[in-house]
């Protein structure tokens, strides 16, 4: 039998022509992405854990730190540690769940520009990062006031606004790394494992290398992104250290992020 391609006159039922709808605004994409970060049980508890862990870390500092260690710097360090783990997870999962849970099929058809969806996610990550850090800073400050008054010592406020700003930036870089691994790997467990290799295993290797190999010790600030982020958390960063952060960030963050974005934009969503 031959294939038939018949153009027959079919009576067409015309629907009233409707005006072309307005383009979906970026603000709406951001608000929807924000909602998607909270509306599952796992997402909700991940977000809630930011506040919970900050309270737990503060409580532990009050209970276990000696009196002379009850400084805001120590509270901030205690609160900051869980942030450095949880915030990148938020960034990773906001990307990878579109693939691992296959919600991308809907997300990328309702907004047929993947770049806009990813931009929305990036803005949400920054928003969540900054708000979480401010919240954590506040909880740490409360802990400092309560802890010192319980122990009858004067509170020490040894972190300036600028230093706190550096710490926020450092955490946002951590989220950017999570975002980068998310778009590059597009699989939740894979990206999470990669993040821990990136942020825990790799620094251990480079530290050992720097201790045993003199030639590497000199070059480490220029090749080790984790190492170059250190000054941000110490609250003091020189011009040269900014340059080191920029150079290492280019290779460890910007370039892989660009490759990841490029592959997301042209890959198939199944």
């Amino acid at each position: 039998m031959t294939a038939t391609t018949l153009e027959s006159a079919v009576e067409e039922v015309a629907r009233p022509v409707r005006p072309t709808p307005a383009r979906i605004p970026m603000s709406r994409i951001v608000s929807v992405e924000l909602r998607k970060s909270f509306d599952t049980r796992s997402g909700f508890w991940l977000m809630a854990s930011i506040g919970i862990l900050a309270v737990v870390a503060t409580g532990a500092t009050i209970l276990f730190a000696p009196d002379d260690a009850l400084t805001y710097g120590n509270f901030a360090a205690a609160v900051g540690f869980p942030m450095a783990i949880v915030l990148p997870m938020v960034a990773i999962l906001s990307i990878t769940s579109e693939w691992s849970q296959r919600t991308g099929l809907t997300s990328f058809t309702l907004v047929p520009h993947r770049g806009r969806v990813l931009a929305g996610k990036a803005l949400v990550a920054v928003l969540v990062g900054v708000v979480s850090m401010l919240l954590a800073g506040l909880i740490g400050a409360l802990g400092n006031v309560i802890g010192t008054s319980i122990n009858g010592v004067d509170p020490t406020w040894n972190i300036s606004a600028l230093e706190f700003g550096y710490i926020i930036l450092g955490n946002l870089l951590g989220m950017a790394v999570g975002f980068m691994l998310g778009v590059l790997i597009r699989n939740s467990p894979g990206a999470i494992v990669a993040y821990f290799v990136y942020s825990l295993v790799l620094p251990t290797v480079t530290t050992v290398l720097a201790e045993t190999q003199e030639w590497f010790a000199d070059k480490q600030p220029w090749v080790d992104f984790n190492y170059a982020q250190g000054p941000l958390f110490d609250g003091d960063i020189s011009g040269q250290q900014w340059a080191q952060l920029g150079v290492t960030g280019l290779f460890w963050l910007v370039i892989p992020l660009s490759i990841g974005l490029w592959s997301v934009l042209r890959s198939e969503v199944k």
Partner: protein
Amino acid sequence: MIKVESLTKQYAGFTAVDDVTFTARPGRVTGFLGPNGAGKSTTMRIMVGLTPASSGYAEVSGRRFADLPNPGLEVGVLLDASAQHAGRTGREILTIAQRTMGLPAGRVGEMLDRVSLTDDEADRRVRNYSLGMRQRLGIATALLGDPDVLILDEPANGLDPAGIRWMRDLLRGYADRGGTVLLSSHLLHEIEVIADDLVVIGQGRIVAQGTKAELLATAGTLVRTPDVHQLAQALTSAGVSFTPSAATGSQDALRVDADPGVVGRVALDAGVHLVELRAADGAGLEEMFLELTADTQRETLTEGAAA
């Protein structure tokens, strides 16, 4: 209106969609039919921009999908009802879509009613949904923006008979009000009862397309006889083409490209005794489908080559 023009998708080593051209028109239900792996889903993913085409293009309402400013208001899409975050409730999934499209919140409840999901079911997490409930939720998402065009990949999958009937009535009514419906299926009988137009695809190529009436009218005659060999010889010498038919489930049938009257005359002249002789459109689309895709399907259902 959906227009697909010379669409081709090549992967390393094989061509999943091969020069596919068709149009789905307003007011019609267009059935996109083919065996598993024929390229239906790939074609549909290309239409909505989830898969890049190697060449050719697809347009919905006169524009490329990516050029639609708010696609949910113009095209309802359901590609895979299971592709949802298992931890979200049905209501939440609809709410996300409603917000993305910028619709009033009341639409969510209306759509839940429309697809017969109860409030209780809507507040359950999707991991606890049956496939049929997921399909209803997917249909609700597709209908949310009151679009002119529906693109549905295997929407009847997992529905019970009542659900299939419901889906059929819903899509029929949608097309009757001027909507364009493209639905894919490998469930032939389902497509046969609902579609106005058919596009049949096998191994990435279109093997037949037209209105259902046209395609069924070309289906010829079905004839059964205990003496297939002798009838085949008689038909060959009469210059009438035929193929072995699997329509009856055994090997005693032929499908002949001629009217029953002609076949009856040939059989009488040859002295072959017939046990059945009728227009083959009773055998319907399945027969046509199996034949059209005979060399492209996984199981060989018909034996031997046509004479």
